[in-house]
């Protein structure tokens, strides 16, 4: 089945996925070169989820993200240059350099922020759903969270609240098999995250998170569902192809496993589909590659050449 989307949309999705991939690769390189510091968690291998989800959303929708948030932000329309500037700790970054990789947001995009506290986005999305409902506003909240976050009490409390109050929230678990070094079988008793939906009387759906179209369709359906009937739990199976954060040797997982997942890399997979459908041609592919290369190069340039934030003024941004 060819989903009812125009050629342009599919190409746009591909470009977004590629952009996220290249952005994260650039970040890894910049870290290795010591040109940015702090921490960052690349979303390499998980691009289909971010892009597939955001394609299915409307501009009135909200997103809460995680520590691994660059991809979500870019997919939602965040400006790679300002994200990069934030990583460089520059005044032009999304948080003016104050936040860093884990703390960026843009209300105008309904992007309520990446979040350094594992699981903390869950109640925030729940409250966003509550706000939409009480204000009788159109829209849904999408809550990205990881398999590791599913062990937090906030998972339980939030799903329970949202189910009780029938809030329009899509709880979207990016199950990339690991929480840092810890495999899901050491964190998820019973073996299934999605199975827990039943306990709250809400639907739970598993999706191949490395299949952009599958994610897109699932979120589209989920969106319709939550608007009418309350929350849903969507589990997207995926794998992070890079380390957890910089300096992670991934000694806790076998090369064989990683190879297996590399074969399911969402990017070549979606590309192959595009080619097969006749949507992506050779010249088009080169054009997209070059566009992405330019965006990344410009982003790094912008970030590098941006001014440092003003030396600290104590009270700014703090209510007194």
């Amino acid at each position: 089945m060819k989903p009812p989307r125009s050629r342009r949309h599919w190409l746009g999705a591909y470009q977004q996925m590629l952009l996220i991939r290249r952005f994260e690769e650039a970040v890894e390189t910049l870290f290795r070169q010591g040109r940015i510091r702090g921490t960052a968690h690349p979303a390499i291998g998980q691009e289909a989820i971010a892009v597939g989800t955001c394609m299915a959303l409307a501009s009135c929708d909200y997103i809460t993200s995680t520590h691994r948030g660059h991809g979500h932000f870019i997919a939602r329309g965040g400006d790679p240059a300002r994200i990069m500037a934030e990583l460089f700790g520059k005044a032009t970054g999304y948080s003016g350099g104050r936040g860093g990789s884990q703390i960026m947001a843009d209300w105008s995009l309904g992007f309520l922020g990446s979040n350094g506290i594992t699981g903390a986005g869950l109640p925030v999305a729940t409250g966003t759903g509550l706000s939409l409902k009480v204000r009788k506003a159109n829209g849904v909240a999408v809550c990205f969270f990881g398999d590791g976050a599913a062990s937090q009490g906030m998972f339980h409390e939030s799903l329970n609240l949202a189910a009780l109050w029938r809030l329009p929230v899509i709880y979207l678990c990016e199950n990339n098999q690991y929480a840092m070094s810890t495999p899901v079988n050491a964190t998820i008793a019973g073996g299934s995250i999605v199975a827990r939906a039943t306990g709250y009387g809400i639907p739970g759906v598993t999706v191949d998170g490395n299949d952009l179209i599958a994610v897109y369709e699932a979120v589209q359906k989920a969106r319709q569902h939550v608007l009418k009937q309350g929350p849903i739990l969507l589990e997207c199976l995926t794998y992070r192809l890079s380390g957890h954060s910089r300096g992670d040797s991934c000694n806790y997982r076998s090369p064989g496993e990683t190879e297996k997942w590399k074969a399911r890399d969402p990017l070549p997979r979606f590309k192959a589909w595009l080619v097969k459908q006749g949507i992506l041609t050779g010249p088009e592919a080169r054009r997209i590659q070059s566009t992405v290369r330019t965006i990344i190069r410009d982003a790094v340039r912008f970030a590098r050449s941006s001014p440092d934030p003003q030396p600290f003024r104590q009270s700014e941004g703090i209510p007194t």
Partner: protein
Amino acid sequence: MTTRSFTEAIRETLEAEMRRDRRIILMGEDIGAYGGAFGATRGLLDRFGPERVINTPISELSVVGAATGAAMTGLRPVVEIMFMDFLTLAMDPLVNLAAKARYLFGDQARCPLVIRTACGAGRGYGATHSQTLTAWLLHVPGIRIAAPSTPTDAIGLLKTALRGNDPVLFLEHKLLYGTREELTLPVAKIRPCPYGKARVVTAGNDCTLVAWSWMLQEALRAHAILSQQGIRIDMIDLRTLAPMDVATMVESVRRTGRLVIADEACRSGSVSAEIAARIFEQAHDYLDAPICRLTAPDTPIPAASNLEAGWMPSAADMVRAVHTITGR
């Protein structure tokens, strides 16, 4: 003129403000039909319905987290945390998101969230239902803290909280709920009370006595005794702890040369320490005697009435402290 209890003051303020601003919602355990553990929301469910008076399950962490999310997306949630001791479960969203949002995300991230909570000992509820953990929040930049001691101030400070754009911790001492006051104006007419502006309750040049919340009521009793003895104290009701009106305290200490701070919490790391430190920093030369911090001891709060009474600073302790510090 009408008299109002502290509880009624809160309830009527919530009601008036909810009528004024549809964005205000209430969340909390048993705040619906039951009206809240201390009755502060009684009747509001009937008036505003379950979409605005949200009776929550026992999930302090996610309720505060959800309220933060709701505050950042257009609502003005007021969360009732039944006992302040339960804030231990809900620190994360307050500290790591609500308090930091404006600094980190800028003005797009307004977070008009009010946490109302019952603090304080004195009713024999025991070590996990009597704590006053205000000092923790004082240490968290980005949160305003109100600690009213009278119905009038409760009304004014709550109004300001509900009309502001930043997270507020609003302290309601259990022993205050039943206290009554004659109001000079109807609740709807009482003005929002500014934060960071202390109230000088009594004027005197012998000693400054700083208190807030329930301790201010004890201070009034101490004042009655002391004034009979001819000792005139400058009594300051801080009303809000963040921001803190240091200027008024400094001005007073410059006149009196002496300062007693009455703080109900455990001594170490208490609000009283911060006050003492700031006054020393700004009025060191004017102090004729060491500052006296009157606090509870560094132990959990005992339940037995004699132990609990001994644990809490009292009017008698204040009188003694003022005697000692003034050398009378």
